[in-house]
């Protein structure tokens, strides 16, 4: 076991060395092919210009190669595979798409994903904003923020175990060791099997992601709130605005851009949600979402790459508007380039 870690560290050392060697060698090669030193009779400036033209591509080379192989090519390949049969050999036209439209489980997943999209980004942003405002006003606010931010470091699988324990149900008159059922029985109601309650179980899964992501929203929004010019709030106070009005009419409008960023970031995360559903229910009791259905079809009965590809494309299609918005935003920020 120790040798495995040593070999992993070895890979790091060798990998870093190889990368450094690549950049160093490419620079040397460039100097060799386009010399500018003494003894070069002609074309010094030409060679300098050629070096400057080629060098960026040497610097970018490994990154472009990786991104091309692992991100750009797969997007195209997935698109093509969606028109092929389960083994990816025979062209089947739109039949995978027709299957998707008619499939009950696919529809269920779309419905659940819409439910997640409607609840989680809104809840995280709302709680994040409220907590950011509250913690900025108390002396132990930073400590509170750290606690609320902490779940961000916990894996979705770890968080699922944590919450599965909260939702734990024990039958009959056994002692309830799950916190939620203990509270419910203490209040005199019957304990419930929360994760198999039809429809509502989706919300118990969403609670996990909200628990993880509220801290993210809080940190970003808190920074944005601190960036609000003091004068605007002072002016509002002088004009006699109360706290509620200052919050909604002065502060929130000034951080709309940040709210949008938080909202879209969590939206993308929600579209890809996989681990939580896999570990909590594995899509049973009508909790299936697109990412899990896609994974399911990748391996179900030996795998069906066509259907799986269609589901992946649906996720991609849902992300695309945000992608375009992000690119526009980034281009505006960097002044057009």
């Amino acid at each position: 076991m120790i040798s495995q870690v040593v070999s992993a560290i070895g890979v790091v050392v060798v990998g870093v060395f190889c990368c450094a060697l690549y950049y160093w060698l490419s620079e040397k090669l460039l100097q060799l092919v386009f010399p500018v030193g003494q003894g070069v009779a002609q074309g010094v400036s030409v060679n300098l210009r050629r070096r400057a033209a080629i060098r960026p591509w040497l610097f970018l080379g490994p990154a472009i190669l990786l991104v091309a192989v692992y991100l750009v090519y797969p997007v195209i390949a997935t698109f093509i595979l969606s028109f092929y049969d389960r083994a990816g050999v025979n062209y089947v036209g739109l039949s995978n798409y027709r299957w998707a439209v008619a499939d009950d489980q696919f529809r269920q997943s779309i419905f659940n994903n819409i439910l997640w999209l409607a609840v989680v980004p809104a809840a995280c942003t709302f709680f994040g904003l409220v907590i950011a405002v509250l913690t900025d006003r108390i002396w132990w606010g930073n400590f509170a923020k750290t606690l609320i931010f902490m779940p961000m470091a916990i894996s979705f699988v770890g968080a699922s175990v944590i919450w599965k324990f909260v939702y734990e149900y024990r039958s009959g008159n056994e002692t309830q060791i799950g916190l939620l059922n203990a509270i419910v029985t203490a209040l005199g109601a019957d304990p419930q099997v929360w994760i198999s309650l039809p429809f509502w179980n989706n919300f118990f899964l969403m609670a996990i992601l909200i628990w993880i992501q509220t801290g993210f929203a809080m940190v970003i929004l808190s920074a944005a709130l601190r960036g609000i010019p003091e004068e605007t709030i002072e002016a509002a106070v002088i004009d006699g605005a109360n706290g509620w009005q200052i919050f909604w009419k002065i502060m929130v409008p000034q951080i709309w851009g940040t709210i949008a960023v938080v909202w879209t970031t969590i939206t993308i995360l929600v579209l890809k949600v996989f681990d939580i559903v896999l570990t909590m229910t594995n899509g049973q009791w009508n909790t299936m979402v697109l990412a899990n259905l896609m994974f399911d079809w990748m391996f179900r009965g030996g795998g069906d790459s066509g259907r799986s590809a269609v589901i992946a494309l649906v996720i991609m299609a849902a992300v695309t508007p945000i992608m375009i918005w992000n690119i526009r935003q980034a281009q505006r920020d960097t002044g057009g380039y």
Partner: protein
Amino acid sequence: MASIATLRRIGLPRLIVHVSVLFVCILWLVPTLGILVTSLRDPAQITSSGWWTAFSGASQTAAVRLGDPASARQEGANYVITGSVFDAPQAATATGGEPGATGNGTVRSFGTKVTAPAEFAAGATADLGTGETLVVNEDGSYRLSRTGPFDNGRGRRLYLTVSTPPSFTMGNYENVLTAQGIGQSFVNSLTVAIPSTIIPVLIAAFAAYALAWMNFSGKSLLIALVVGLMVVPLQMSLIPVLRMYNGIGSTFGIPARSYAGVWLFHTAFGMPLAIYLLRNYIAGLPKEIIESARVDGATDFEIFLKIVLPLSFPALASFAIFQFLWTWNDLLVAMVFLGTGSDQLVLTGALNALLGSRGGKWEILTASAFITIIVPIIVFFALQRYLVRGLLAGSVKGG
């Protein structure tokens, strides 16, 4: 009066702020605290009481059968049976659920009727009628005596309320680290995460420098591409890359699922965010430093290595933390590209497998979960500053 004065000074709205933030903090902390406490408890106590009672000890009801009438001794006119309830066998009861009294608990109360299982306090003499008396002491020793010989065929059934002191153990951790394979998985997770964190930093830094400080055509297109690719869902790449790996595996006769495949996948998927974060940071470095170095005749390679890389340490650290948390916490990539054999599972995968195979064994699940989350939490608390900085700089990406 002092408290009211303080209250007036703080102000009621201010107090509401304090209380509500405190409430949210407790709400956020309690679930994690639950698995931490549970992972340290004795397995028998975990199922008999909620973890929030761990520090006050557990109280359980037990049903035992006292000694056989054949074991009675005669003391004068009385027939006496003595022994300890903790050695007595478990009795089948009408409600079925009660276990036998085991361990080193303290008897709080006892009773002989299921309708009144705690009728008598420990140490008290219970008159059971027909000349029979019973004393059960706190330490579990009992004395059942009767003025004549015992006429029933079996030992008497006794109900007990036993309280056990809080008992904490590291045994659950020893168990999962060795017997449940979590130790191996921990090593596997390290094997995945370390190279997947460090190698992309270097590759991305070179690319970011080119995008920030070199002039070439197509630069704006590349930057737009980087921003766009940041949100490409992982799911898009799974099928083609798996087919590619399978193809390479069968062509060259090597296993299709390997650490190398996972490293490259993580490196590639970290690339857009890394380039974006680092480019923004490197582009913001003072122009004078880089231009004066150029005037002095330094090549771009030298400028990058000697000036840009040391100055961008905060941004490099930010990205490295992100990438480490992401690769350590990842389940999907490891499941697809690393295989699901018990010696190949990373921590998240092992935890997922345990949820399936050890569903109700909370001592195993909670200890495993805590081992899974402890490394990222340490990283989080140690390097929170860099994490926040990275978040603020690169909040376009969705995780």
